[in-house]
Each structure stands twice: as structure tokens, then as C-alpha cells.
């Protein structure tokens, strides 16, 4: 909950590493106050004390001092390095997701956030998470850069089209916290936000149960893989197909034509679907067609989740919440089941189609003609 003081000075601390960020903040604040106030006092004191006694007088003939220069080079350097080390430690903690996380997939688009839990629940501009669990967001965007920023958790990360970025946190305090988009994304940038609800685990389970969950990402991915996109006709269980078997491939090293070895991570699988000619597995022919423009970002998330679920070295595997696969039968549409129970999105969500209209005030000779939409739209 937000503080009710008249002028808030400080955001709430609601994640496991928030105190680290704040401690670093206060450390640097203390150092800078010491030097800043110290310098200002000395400057003011000198300016008054050595005010000219006569017009066009002459100041003392002092040229400098090597020991002093060394002192005020070395001491600030050492202090700056303590800031570097402390900053690096916190940076590392913030940006290295631990292994045992609960996964949430995030797709940003102008100007809304779509979240999907590993158990299949979808939300828009709201994210419900249980207190005390490590949450990992796997994020991408359908259009421009965005940025997930949750001040109470003291963390943020850009969301970049064409690749995945990650964010993790462990909420420590139930409450309702701001969610902002912190990377400028066009017309309604400041409206692209919402709330993160941190709930007690029991409340969270109730919330999950009270929501119609769609297909889990794994099930959606399986459906695409086996039926809709027909991936399975080439990528069979064994290595007999025209494409390599994907069982157990996730997290392993893959040897490419030409001898290069790459790790089969999210990024690799994504690229192999969208740009199959880029990286050909050794001993296979470059015959796979591209699926660019045929799969949405959310379908990609599903495909990757499914390929992960085929086994392999799943150090970053999908550890979904307790009720992971119980919604499998629920074969809803692949589209986002927007505004499911309890999710009443109050934020302005400009539908995709509106962008052209709202931006086209003032005709524009520079606008590229016939921009091809990168993916088909669901909303």
C-alpha cells in the first residue's frame, strides 16, 4: 500500500533485495553528503573569509601541492571503488535469477502488459504473485521497447522486441504496488502501467482457483507443435525425421554445421523458429521454412515452454505453481483471455488498431508506407 504521508519521500520496500538497494543508496548518500556539504561549507567559508581587502589585490602565491593532489585523487578513487563493488554485488543479485523460480511470461505491447502464469492464468496490466516465492519474468514485446519497472521491488528491466529479457524478485510484503513502463514507447507511454498485487500464499491459491485459466503455456505449445503448426512431422521423437529431435535438447549444447557449438536456450529456440536458416544443426539440411509472421509472441512462449518440457538439462526449467497442469483440458483459445474474473483493468488500453489513427494527426511524408505487421494480431 502506498504511504499516506503528505509528501512521500521513499518508496515501500517489498522485495527480498529492496533493502540491499536501499542500503547502497544510503551508503552513497552518506558519502556524497559528507563530501558535498563539506565542499560547499569550505567554498562558502573561503569565499567569505578571503573576500578582497582592497580593489585589485593579489591572492597568495600558491601554485599547488603534489601531496594534496594525490590525496584527493586516491581517496575518492578508493571510495568510488567501494561503491563499484557494492553496486556490482547488488547488480548481480538483481539480474541473476535463481534456479527455483515460479515462471510468469510477459508480453508488452503498445500500451498494455500481458502476463501469463505457468499455470495458464492470464492477466492484463495486473500481476498477482504470492509472497515469499521467487518469481521470474520472461519478457518480450510485440512492437517497441518497453520496460517493466516495479519501484517497490527496486528492480526494472527493458523489454526488447526480438529477444527475451528476464527479471526476478521475491516479494516480501503483501500489498498493491505500482507497475510502470519505464522505457518510452510512444503515445500512451504514461498510461502503460498497472498494479502488482502481492498476496499471502493462501489468498494467491484462492485467486488462482477463482480464475478461469486458459491452456498452460506447455499445453498451448504442444497443441501448436503437434497440430496447428505441424512441427512434429519433421521433429520426431527419434532422430529419424527430417529435422533433429527436440527431446531433451533444451539447455544442451548443439553442434551446428561448420562446427560451432551453441547452447539451446530460449533465444536459440526462438531464433530457430523465426529464422531457421540462421543456425543449421550438423548433419541436417536447411529445409525448414520460417515461421516469422505466423506465430505470435505468446505462441512462441508456448512453443519454447513445450520444448523445455520435453526434458533435458532443465536448470532453468519451468517450475510452475502447485496447480500446474490441472487446466490442461481447458482448451481455450490461444488468444489472451482478457479481463478474467477479478481482473478489471482500469488503465487505458488503446487497441492496436487505434494506433494508426491516434498518431496520424498531421499527415506525415516520412512514414514508411505499408509497414508489414510483424505478427498477426489477436485482439
Amino acid at each position, binding site marked *: 500500500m502506498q504511504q499516506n504521508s503528505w509528501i512521500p519521500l521513499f518508496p515501500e520496500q517489498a522485495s527480498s533485495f529492496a533493502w540491499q538497494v536501499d542500503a547502497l543508496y544510503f551508503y552513497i548518500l552518506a558519502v556524497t553528503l559528507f563530501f558535498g556539504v563539506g565542499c560547499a561549507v569550505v567554498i562558502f567559508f573561503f569565499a567569505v573569509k578571503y573576500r578582497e581587502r582592497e580593489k585589485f589585490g593579489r591572492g597568495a602565491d600558491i601554485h599547488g601541492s603534489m601531496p594534496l593532489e594525490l590525496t584527493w585523487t586516491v581517496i*575518492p578513487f578508493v571510495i568510488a571503488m567501494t561503491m563499484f563493488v557494492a553496486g556490482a554485488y547488488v547488480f548481480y543479485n538483481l539480474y541473476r535469477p535463481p534456479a527455483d523460480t515460479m515462471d510468469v511470461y510477459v508480453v508488452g505491447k503498445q500500451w498494455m502488459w500481458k502476463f501469463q502464469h505457468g499455470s495458464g492464468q492470464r492477466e492484463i496490466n495486473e500481476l498477482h504473485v504470492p509472497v515469499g516465492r521467487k518469481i521470474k519474468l520472461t519478457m518480450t514485446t510485440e512492437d517497441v521497447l518497453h520496460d517493466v519497472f516495479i519501484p517497490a521491488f527496486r528492480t526494472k528491466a527493458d523489454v526488447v522486441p526480438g529477444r527475451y529479457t528476464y527479471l526476478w524478485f521475491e516479494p516480501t510484503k503483501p500489498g498493491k504496488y505500482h507497475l510502470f513502463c519505464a522505457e518510452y514507447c510512444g503515445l500512451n507511454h504514461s498510461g502503460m502501467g498497472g498494479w502488482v498485487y502481492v498476496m499471502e500464499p493462501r489468498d494467491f491459491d484462492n485467486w488462482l482457483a477463482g480464475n478461469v485459466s486458459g491452456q498452460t503455456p506447455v499445453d498451448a505449445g504442444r497443441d501448436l507443435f503437434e497440430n496447428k503448426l505441424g512441427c512434429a512431422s519433421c521433429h520426431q521423437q527419434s532422430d529419424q525425421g527430417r529435422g533433429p529431435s527436440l527431446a531433451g535438447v533444451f539447455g544442451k549444447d548443439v553442434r551446428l554445421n561448420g562446427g560451432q557449438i551453441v547452447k539451446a536456450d530460449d533465444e536459440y529456440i526462438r531464433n530457430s523458429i523465426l529464422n531457421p536458416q540462421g543456425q543449421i544443426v550438423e548433419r541436417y539440411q536447411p529445409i525448414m521454412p520460417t515461421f516469422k509472421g505466423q506465430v505470435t509472441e505468446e505462441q512462441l512462449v508456448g512453443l519454447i515452454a513445450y520444448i523445455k518440457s520435453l526434458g533435458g538439462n532443465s536448470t532453468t526449467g519451468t517450475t510452475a505453481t502447485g496447480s500446474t497442469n490441472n487446466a490442461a483440458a481447458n482448451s481455450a483459445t490461444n488468444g489472451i483471455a482478457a479481463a478474467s474474473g477479478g481482473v478489471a483493468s482500469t488503465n487505458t488500453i488503446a487497441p492496436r488498431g487505434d494506433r494508426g489513427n491516434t498518431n496520424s494527426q498531421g499527415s506525415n511524408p516520412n512514414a514508411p508506407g505499408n509497414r508489414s505487421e510483424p505478427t498477426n494480431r489477436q485482439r
Partner: protein
Amino acid sequence: MENVEVINITQKPKLNYLNNGDTVSSWLLTRDHKRIAILYLISVSFFFMVGGLFAAGIRLELLTPQSDLFESGTYNKIFTAHGIIMIFLFLIPSIPATLGNFFIPLMIGAKDLAFPRINLLSWYLYMAGAGIAVWALMQGGVDTGWTFYVPYSTTFSNTYVVATGLGAFIIGFSSILTGLNFIVTIHTMRAPGMTWFRMPLFVWSHYATSLIMILATPVIAITLLLLVLERVGRVGIFDPAIGGDPILFQHLFWFYSHPAVYIMVLPGMGVISELIANFSRKRIFGYEYVAFSSIAIAVIGFLVWGHHLFVSGQSIYAGLVFSFLTLVVAIPSAVKTFNWTATLYKGSISWDTPMIYALGFLGLFLIGGLTGLFLGAAGLDIHMSDTYFVVAHFHYIMVGGQVMAYLGGIHYYWSKMTGRMYSEFWSKIAAIVTFIGFNLLFFPQFILGYLGMPRRYASYPEEMQVLNILSSAGASILGVGFAMPVFYLIFSLFYGKKAPDNLWMLPGLEWRTESPPPTENFYETPIVTWEAYEFGEESGLDFEEARKREMATI
């Protein structure tokens, strides 16, 4: 030097650079660095006021949490216009093209810059680029932010991105040519006896600035060209939908734009070194350290661009390296500040208006520089990146630093440039009002930033309103502080007292010629026999005589 001789010369009928030719073409086709500096002074000051009006629009909108004064699309265009005008049309040319252009030749005892025609060309390039940018703004503006981040700028924005980018591209050449001109001038045209370590620190800082101008500006030129190529020709360079990489753009953009921050502040540091030393009437403390810290800032400043990408998805190991280098580049700035402070010790400090601006600079630059440490520490920057903390930080450097130095420099050299004196009373009031207004405007933004208010937001949560109101109130005070000099300086041109050649009895070469200087700067090539900031016998100045003259006028 024979000051007596200079005084004798002043008795002759005066023909100075201002009245030596009064046709329009004698100004627009001039090759005199001083006249070109005046052309720049008028144009950049004009654009500073235009950019300031856009800033007023931003602060008005942010009085209330809702986006109600402007539509959010308009708001986006306003902050973009503010950024582009202030950075490309004002901050980058501000001190170098005006005070640098005017005083580098005077300070080193040269008749002009090395390439007078190129100097004029760079003003025309600046005006051409500015013209295109202004045309784009009047046609409907740009809404990408001054950073032009892709793929928004190349694929999604329906505004005048190409025209604005082209404007910035052309202005870049003006900047390159100015830098080139300065470097060649400083290398080849110093007067006899003006050794490197006798040069005023203003010249050193402009040398460092020029290095950045010629090495970094081509990169932004290339980046903008690639951006136009992708936007117009759909060549996939940055947009992943057509095979590009958006992070590549950020690297290229900041490879210029971070060093450009130093283009924007090093000249200000040069002015402050002049003011602090001359108004303390003693040699600057640790001359060599201040000089080389400028060079160190210029060199290390090339290696820190990645701190703009801590949250962008760049590798965390890259992030750590950039965090380290960022905290290293803080050191030369700290060294400068300590040396300025030490210079005051046992000085003979006069509180004339330029010195008030300089002391204001020190206060604001301290805050601006120290808050940079928060942002350099990578773990803390994640929370603060893209918030108002960043906005406040760079305004403390750009406005609190460079603009205070610009105003301080203009007041300092006004008598030399125009031969007139401004009102000491009103100018002091203006300096103090500026300092107060600035702090009220930007200090609350540090708190807003830590609270999490993202930048470039037209609307914001209600609990942040009080701080925003304080900030907007500060903006109106700052506006008054900036507007006052316009009036009393213009007033002084017509009604101001005539200024003596060496108003403060300072040792620099620029003070040993007439006010305003003759077109050829010096009637005879000066021979320098004294160190920089020499207030003793060796300077050859007759302080007793000046003191008597001063007494007589009172």
C-alpha cells in the same frame, strides 16, 4: 607587457570589430571569429529561449497528475522538442561556438582562428540544420524523445523523424568543423611565449572538447544515417522485425551521446576555471592537474557509454565493466572541484556577478556530479534508470553546470565583447534568483525519481503531485532568473557605461587589448612572458595605477 602602450592606442580614433563595417553582408559574410561568435551568441540564445518555452509546457502539464493540459501525443512532442533544441541547438554549440570562438584566439594571442572561412561555414551549417529541425517542429514535430530509440523511431512513430534526424546530422558537421578549427588554432597559432602550460585553462578545456567533437560526432552522423536508411528504405539494421538489433542502436547512439555530455560540460568547466582563478586573483591551484583532468575526462568519457544500457538487456558483465569505468571518470571531475575549492584559499576574492555565477556553478555541479555516483553504481541504477532521478541529475550538470557557466562567462566577457557595462545590481539579483529557482525546480525531482516516477510521463500517480508542484514553481522562478539578463544586457548595449579595456585588471591576453577588440585583435603580436593567472609583478600590469583610477571614479 607594456600596458601603457595599449592605453596609448586607445586614444586613437576607435575602429573595433563591431563598427568596422555595418552592412548586413559585413556580418553575414564576415570571417572575423568575433563577429561569427556574436552570430552564434544570438542564435544559440534564441534557441535556448525556445527550448525554455517547451520546458515551461512540460512543467505546466505536470502540475496535475492527469494528462489534461495537452494530449499525451502533444506532450511527447513537447518534451522531444525541448530535448532536441536544448541539446543540439543550444548546449553543444553554447560555450564553444560563442565564448570559445570569440576568446580562444584572443587568449592565445592570435588574429583569428586557423580557418576563418570554415568557421563561417560551420555557422551556416548550424543554421541550416537548425532550420530543418525547426521546420520539422512546425510541421507537426517529433515524438521519439531526443534519443530516437528504435524500433519506435524507425517503424512506429508517425512524425517527422527523418527531417529532425537530418537536422541533427547537419549540425554535427558544424560541430566537427568547429572542433577541427580549435585544435589547429591551438596547435599552430599561439603567440610567442604562449607555451602549452601558459595557456588559460579555458583553452585546455576547449582542446579536450574539440577532441571529442571530431572523434565522436561522426558516430552520431553514421547512426542517424542508418536510422534514416531503415526508416525510409526498410533496410533491416535496428528493427528486429526486419532482421535488425535495437540494442545496437543504443550502443551507437550513446557512443556519441555520452561523450557529447562532456562536450556540453567541459567548456563550462573551462569558464569556471577562469572565473575562480581570476576573481580570487591568484594562480589556479594545481594548474597541470586541472588541465590534464580535462583530457582524462575526454579520454575515459569515451569508454563509459554502456552505463546508459544497464537495464537494456546488455550482458551483465558488460554492465559491470561500464559501472567500473563510470566511477573512474568521476575522479577527474572531483579533482577539478577540489582544485577550484583550493584556489579560493587565501585569495583576494571579489563577489562580482561572474563570480556569483561561478560559486553557483560549484554548488550545483557538486550536487550534479555526486548524484552521478548513485547512477554509476550498477545495482542502484537499475532502480533509478529512466526515472526523474536521472532527469534531475543531468539537469544539474547541463543547466546547473553548463548554463550557469554560460551565463557567468557572458557576464564576465560582456564588457570585452560589447565595450559596455551591465547593471551590477540586477545581474547579481538574476544570478541569485537563477540559483534558487533551479534548486527548487530540480531538487524535488531526485525524490520523485527514487519514489519511482518514470521520465517522459504525461500523467503520474497522485501521491507524487506535491513534489511536482514544487518543481513547477521552481521552474517559474528559474524562468524569471533566465529572462532578467535578456533585459538588462540589451539595455546595457544602449545605455550602459563604457567599459575600460581591462575592467578587473586581469592578466589574460584577451584583457590586454581594447574593449571591444579591433578586428585584428592585437595591433602588435603580443609576446608572453608570464604564467597563466599571474597577478604579480611579472604580469606587467600596473595595479597601483588601476587602483587610483578606480578611486577616482568613486
